[in-house]
Each structure stands twice: as C-alpha cells, then as structure tokens.
C-alpha cells in the first residue's frame, strides 16, 4: 500500500469529518435541547454556500464573502425559527419531519429562483489555492488543510462555550432536562432561538467552506443532512463530544472505505466480485454503522447524561 496516498486519504477524511462536524454540531444542539428533528438544517448549509458565493463573486474576496455570509445565514435561521420552527417544539417528531421537509422544498425552490438552476463555482484566493509539502514528502492541497484547521478551531471554541461558560451550562442543562431549566426561570424561548441561530451559522459556514471545492448546488444540503443525522445518532443525540468523535469517525470511514474497500475485498474474494461489491458497500458503510449502533447501543457512543 502506498503510504503517501494513505496519508492524503486520511487527511481528506479528516477534512470531510471536520465539515460534517460543523453541520452535525448545530443539529445535535437543536435535537438535544429542543427535541427538534430538523431536516431543513441542510438547507441552511446550502443557503450559506450560495450567499457566500454571491458575495465572493461580487466583491472578489472569499474572506469578505464568508464574513458577510455568516451573519446573513444567522438572519435566515432566525427568520425560520420565528416563523415556523418555534411552532413545532410542542409537536411530535412526525410533525417535525413533515414541516421541515416542507421547508426543504421551499428553500430548494427559492434558491433556484434567486440563483438559477445551476450551481456556482467559487474561486479561491491565490494564497489559499496552493499545495503544501508535508513532512514525509506528502503533497496536500493547502485549502483542505485550512478547512481542517478552521474546523478544529471551531470545535475547540464550541467545547469552551459548552463546558466553560454560563450559556454552555444552560445548553447542557437543556439537553439533560428541559422542563427543569425552564422551571428555574431560564428564558427558554430566547435560548432556543439563540441555539438555532448558532446552529444555522455553523451549518452555513460548512457550506461556505466546501463551496470552493465542490461548488454550490441545489441538492447539496439534502445529501449532507442525512449523513449529519447518522453522525448525531452514532455520537449520541445532544452530545457535542459525541458529534465530534462520530463526525471524524464517519468522515474517515467514508473516505477510506471508498478508496480501500476494494483492496480489502480482493484479499478474500476474486477481483471481479470485489470490484462490484466494494463501491456498493462503501456507499452503504455509514448507514450500516448507524444501524449497528442503533441495534446494539441505541443511546449512541457518548449519550448526554439525562435524568
């Protein structure tokens, strides 16, 4: 096996995992605290990417694009929370699924009306668009390293926010026992709105970061949202730590599975069968993991302590 290729694929997996964490962290917060199944979380990822792409093309600067698109995505998140999502909290999961499914249809169409059916290619600034020579003679795209760095920094920031601040204490308390913290006089409505907006920002940021690599497209949110759900189920609903570990795990498993599963299969079966079976299985791999987790450890890897 080629070592440098393996390192590159591992880094790619890490980069995917970090992006997935940005999406899943917001999802696990809203799920854990508000008990809300938000399928439309992926739409915020898409919205963030499109807003950032427009601003980038308009101003010519990717950084300005990101800096302006983050508050813009937060505003979209606030608007959605106040008009639709807020009314869903007292409902059951079935209503959540249906109403947020409706939101997806709306968002996808709105984006199509505003930006047209075709996606946007986002140019990278020159200084980000290079390659880095890593120790060991591995050449890797510097932008992907930047994504990993930004993602890890945000993960650390979120960790600090959740574990060491008063807001974080409320968030954790909300995930453990919602009724109790509202009985203690905490303004739960404001907390919910705030958490939703933060989640929207994080998802939007993930979309912005990924757009120079894949471009923006209308279905992009619907692909990642399902993976994000897999992550929060595997990690344990409501757990930030679980979301981080599971996101990195799923990112690595998915990337490495796609590149090495056929080699593994060739060890135990003939080449022809391996070449048909491997792509099928690598696409299904993360769902298989989720099904296994749900069957044997339904609370996830790191469930928050609940009462």
């Amino acid at each position, binding site marked *: 096996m080629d070592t440098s290729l393996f390192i590159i694929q591992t880094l790619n997996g890490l980069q995917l995992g970090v992006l997935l964490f940005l999406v899943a962290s917001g999802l696990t917060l809203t799920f854990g605290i508000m008990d809300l199944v938000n399928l439309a979380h992926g739409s915020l990822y898409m919205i963030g990417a499109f807003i950032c792409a427009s601003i980038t093309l308009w101003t010519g600067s990717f950084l300005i694009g990101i800096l302006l698109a983050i508050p813009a995505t937060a505003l979209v998140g606030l608007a959605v929370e106040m008009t639709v999502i807020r009314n869903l909290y007292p409902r059951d999961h*079935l209503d959540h699924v249906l109403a947020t499914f409706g939101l997806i249809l709306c968002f996808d169409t709105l984006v199509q009306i505003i930006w047209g059916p075709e996606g946007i290619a986002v140019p990278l600034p020159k200084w980000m668009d290079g390659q880095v020579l890593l120790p060991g003679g591995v050449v890797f795209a510097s932008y992907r390293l930047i994504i990993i760095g930004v993602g890890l920094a945000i993960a650390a920031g979120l960790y600090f926010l959740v574990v060491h601040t008063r807001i974080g204490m409320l968030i954790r308390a909300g995930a453990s026992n919602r009724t109790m913290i509202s009985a203690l006089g905490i303004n739960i409505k404001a907390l919910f709105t705030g958490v939703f907006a933060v989640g929207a920002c994080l998802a939007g940021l993930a979309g912005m970061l990924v757009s120079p690599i894949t471009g923006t497209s209308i279905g992009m949110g619907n692909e990642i949202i399902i993976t994000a759900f897999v992550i929060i189920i595997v990690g344990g609903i409501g757990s930030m730590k679980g979301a981080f570990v599971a996101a990195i795990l799923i990112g690595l498993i998915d990337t490495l599975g796609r590149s090495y599963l056929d080699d593994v299969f060739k060890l135990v079966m003939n080449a022809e069968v391996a070449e048909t079976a491997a792509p099928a299985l690598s696409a299904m791999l993360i769902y298989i993991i989720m099904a296994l987790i*749900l069957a044997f450890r339904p609370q996830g890897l790191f469930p928050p302590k609940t009462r």
Partner: protein
Amino acid sequence: MSIQQTEQSKPSSAGPGAASRSGQRLNAERIITLIILAALIVVPVAAYYGDARYWVDLATRLVILSIAATGLNFILGYGGMISFGHAAFIGLGAYAVGIPVFHSINDGFPLIASNNGFLHFVLAMAVCAVFALLTGAISLRTRSVHFIMITMAFGQMTYFAIVSIEKYGGDDGLTIDLRSEWPLITFDHPLVLYGFCLASLFVVMYLVHRMVNSRFGMVLQGAKQNEERLRALGINVYNYQLTAYVISGIICGYAGALLGNFTTFISPEMMDWTRSGELMFMVILGGVSFLFGPLIGAAVFLLLEESLSRFTIHWHLPFGVLLILSVLFIRGGLSGLLQKLGGARDR
C-alpha cells in the same frame, strides 16, 4: 404521548354521545368516499374514450400511490410506527418486475428470467417481506426518533445498493421493455392496467380494514397508545409490530410492482429519502388511521402537484408552504377536518 394521538383516540372512547358522533362522522365520510369512488370509476373510462389519456395516467398513478400510502398508513397511522424508508419497498417491488424482464430479454439468471406476472408480483412481495422482516427485526428494537432514522438508513442502503449495480442501469435507471404478462388480460391496455390497480386498491383497503378491526389490529392500535399496558397484559408487542411491518412492506412492494408496470421506467431515484417523505406526507395529509385517509391524501397530493406545476416550474415552493401550513394548522389531516366539520359541536 403526543396531543395529536390523544385527540384521535377520543372518538373511539365509548360514552354518551359516542354513537351520534360516529353517526355524523360516517355521514360526512361516506359522502366524500362515495364521490371519490364514483370519480375513480367514471373519470378514467370517460377520459379514455374521450381521448384524454392524461387523466387515465393520472388516475393510475393516484391509485398506485394510494395502495402504497395505505400500506404505510397501516403501520404509521394505526401502529404509530413512523417509517421513513418506505420508498425502498416500492423500489424493490418495481425492480422485482424490471430485473426478471431484463433477464428474459438479455440472457442470464434463468431462475427468475420471465415475463410472467405471477412470478413478478410474488417475487416483489416475497423480496419485500424478507427485507421488511430483516430490517424490521432490527428497527423495532428502537423507539421514536431512532426508529425514524434507522428506517431511513435502511432505505438509503437500498438506494445505494441499487445505484451501484451497474448491470441494471445503476444511477441511470432501467427501462422495462415488456410489461408483466397475465392469462386473459394485458397490461398494455391503459384501462385494463387501471382496472387492475383499482381492484387491487379495493382489495388492499378491505384487507387493511379487516386487519385493523381484528384482535391483531386492536393490539397494534393499543401499542400505539400505551405499549407498557399491553405488555402488562402479557402481549408480546414486538411480534405484533414486526408482523404489521412485514405486511406493510408487502403492500408497498405490490404497489411498486404495479408502478414498474405503469411507468415502464424505474430508477433508484424512486427510493430516495425524499420519496419516503412524500409518501408520509400523503398519509398525514389524508389523516392517519382513517381507511380512506391515504386515498384522499394521495389524491390531494397529486392534484396539487399537477395543478401547481402547470402554473409555474417552481411549484415546489407553494407546495412546501402548503405542506408546512397543513402540518401547523390541520391536525388529524383532511379526514380529521371533515370529521370536525361534520361534528363541530361536540368538539
């Protein structure tokens, strides 16, 4: 337990006024039902001889989707099991027609290479039964949102499995060159196909009606309301739910086989999770745990889709808004709404 569920359980509680309440409900429901049934029989025949094939096709699609929605309603509405992966059964059913036909034209797989309709439909139902048994056995160990997600995961697995089999078209889908062959009738005649679908719908609805009102159905509905109480009564809820899940899968597989015959083109796209969402929407829109709910839901869904898409290519926008509004404001679906209008005073 949600508020919605307790609300729905109200009419079934015996007490003073219960008889008159159900009497009023029957009237409102009966009239609507008769109108729909009459339309289902008259409109396609008239359309066919009036040279408006479009309406025959629309009615066929409606009836097939109604069968699938009835299958989903059986576990979702009556059993409270929110399956988010039922499109997989429809897809499997359709491929159970497509793959044998593919092999009967191109060589290979002699065991199932055939155009025989009996083989297609038995295969569709058998595959779905096995798939439902395997996935249901695992899924039903979980509850609430975990159940939604694990059923979706199995749906996605099926989707990616079919996508990766390039022999049967993979992502591009598979054209079914020949429809299922039957003695005496031919599916190539649109009215015959439609009649077959409609008869199937009636049979399925009758069977579901019988099952819901049997001891089996009572256990299922009881488990939705209070699982622990049933367990305390010594009933193995898991076995009942698994049986219901398998039956539901078989019904959707059957609908899938019909759909394959109708569209003659199948692709993994029909198993995408958004399709499962649409199917769920039909059930909820029509009103869960009403026999005619799925039919009403599917009818409204298709008519909305058709009429909105005539006005604008962006029809998903008003459609999504209507979906959100219906969730927020019409509890108990359209059937529930009819009920309320029929018996507004005793609410």
